[in-house]
């Protein structure tokens, strides 16, 4: 395959990746968010693989393989083991902003991230970074937005993982030759995030009986009236 075809394929993957991120903002149930996250991680892995093929870099192949193992397989499995009843609960997630407005804000955040990225890119930047950097940044901001508006523990966990996905999506294009040990450590780190947050969510469920962590606001300076 020629580099041009691969670049186009990568752009397609980027588009689908962004679409999944919008899906995470738009889904009403935890299971839907988790499915979107799995798809998104697969697209991240595909993008890393394509870039590895373009650069002929063994690092990126390793990143693709690691991502494929950890994010779409291991993390959902562990989350279901730890907080299974929360993941499959068929109730709607309480959130501060309703979904149509959320999607509107998501579009604005994406435009903002294109502005930020435009400021960083120059004419000499390879086309791959021009695709991956703004999409990664958008995913980062949308993940943060998800954490702020969603009040459910598992949804917030996936928000954090989405932010990491965004950072990695930009990372595979702008830092393709990062030392392998750092990549491995980062993948391991993401796994620990999922385990720690899953266990904590379970502890909260066992102790408090709910996982709508957004409604826990007992700790503050002034007593509630």
């Amino acid at each position, binding site marked *: 395959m020629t580099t041009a075809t691969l670049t186009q394929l990568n752009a397609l993957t980027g588009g689908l990746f962004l679409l999944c991120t919008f899906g995470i903002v738009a889904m009403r149930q935890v299971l839907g968010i988790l499915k979107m996250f799995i798809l998104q991680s697969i697209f991240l892995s595909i993008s890393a693989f394509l870039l590895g093929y373009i650069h002929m870099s063994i690092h990126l192949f390793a990143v693709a393989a690691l991502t494929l193992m950890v994010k779409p397989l291991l993390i959902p499995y562990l989350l279901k083991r730890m907080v299974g009843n929360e993941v499959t609960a068929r109730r709607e997630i309480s959130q501060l902003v309703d979904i149509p407005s959320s999607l509107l804000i998501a579009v604005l955040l994406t435009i903002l991230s294109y502005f930020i990225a435009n400021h*960083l890119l120059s004419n000499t930047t390879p086309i791959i970074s021009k695709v991956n950097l703004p999409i990664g940044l958008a995913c*980062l901001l949308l993940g943060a937005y998800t954490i702020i508006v969603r009040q459910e523990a598992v949804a917030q966990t996936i928000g954090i993982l989405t932010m990491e996905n965004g950072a990695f999506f930009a990372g595979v294009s*702008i*830092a393709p030759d*990062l*030392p392998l*040990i750092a990549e491995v450590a980062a993948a391991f780190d993401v796994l620990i995030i999922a385990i*720690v947050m899953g266990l904590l969510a379970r*502890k909260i469920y066992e102790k408090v009986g709910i996982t709508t962590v957004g409604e826990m606001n007992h700790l503050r*300076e002034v007593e509630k009236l």
Partner: protein
Amino acid sequence: MILIYILIIPIIASLLTVLPLGKRWPEGVSIISSLLVFLLSIKTAISASDGSVITAINGWISCDGLSALLLLLIGFVSLVSSIFSWGYMEKHLSQRQWRKKRRYYYRLALFVFSMLCVPVFSQIALVWVAVELTTLFSVFLVSFENTTDALEAAWKYVVLTCMGAALALIGILILYWGMRAVSSEPFTWTGLIHSSDTIAPSLLKTAFLFILVGFGTKVGLVPLHTWLPDAHSQAPSPVCVLLSGIETTTVLYVILRLIPVLGSSPSINAGNWFIAAGLVSVAVAAFLLIQVRDYKRLFAFSTVEHMGIIMVAAGIGTASARMGATYQILAHSITKSLCFFAAGALFIIAETREIGSVRGLIRTSPLTGASLLIGGLAIAGAPPFAVFLSEFSILKAGIEAGRYIPISLLLIFIITAFCAVMFHINSMVFGRPSNSKVTVQLPPSIILSLVIAVVPVLLFGIYVPVKLEHLLINAASVLGR
């Protein structure tokens, strides 16, 4: 080699603590291992005090003046904290909860390990991993008491700091991108400084802002500080000491490391960003200090204030201000540990965190009262303690540099904070005790750790050993170009 030992000892300790060998086994392992780490970090600090860089693995693990200062502080605080933990566990867990106790010591050792990694790693991507690990290994220490409040605090802590870490990650990747475009040096702090002249300023500035916001969350810079008073007040006292005394400083170290990198392009105006972020933190913390009603939150907000002061000092950026910043790092760590040890002892006696329900501590428990008073005076910045000297030198350096407006604001906020802290401490230490009948005996290990913690607080305001002074000077020179 010595740096490798420093990293390996806590890992071995964490593995050893889970072995079921006797009732006092985990405590023993924890204290001996942290004593070893402390001794090794003293040795490292002495060899780094003449300005040399100790390298274990070139491009991966090395240690200069600033790193050695951090190592020394982590070693000291974790040693005293593991002594304090003995008494704390004795008071809070029954004999049958040995499994919970083992888990506590296991996590404590891992937490100390992750903090030791931050200054010792020179590969910046790995520093990011280490900072993230400090959060992940300490989450279950924060939620140790398993109350609703503790779980709420732990959740806020992990969500906000992981969010911050993701932002910092993209900052670090942009930094790497900028550096790779112009040089092929390894991605270490020194490599970054060497190539910083040629990195595009727009990339440097964006990376800096991402890292400032990202790691600033973990340092507790306002307005991203909301998790800090919760986590730092709900955790068990020996963990609070580590979180407040040293963890915030360890992450601040990463931000401070960027100063020489940013110095290359004056268009970034990094100094002003540092001063603005610092002043806002000091201001908000000073006014929140007035209205706290929980004495552990009091000290937590004072941590926010001190992080702000260090940021301002780093932003002024003259040689004497940098010296003030490193001295403030030292003074804050040792003093804040004493404060939280005193708060921990007070919690054992009073069994409440409310300032209003503690009266006349100096009569019910003279030792706790005295250490709380010394800690309060020292952290608020009264002479002749170390914090007074460091704050004074920062103010002086600022006036010499001609930054009159930020310095006068800083002075107002420091005085506000002083009055607020002393008002609360006074009301707890003096007055008529509400219930004078019960006198709780403190376990000997807690008394020992209070005594150890008070020594440097009293000493460093009056006399700083020559080697330590050299180390501070070297650490300050690392922050310059």
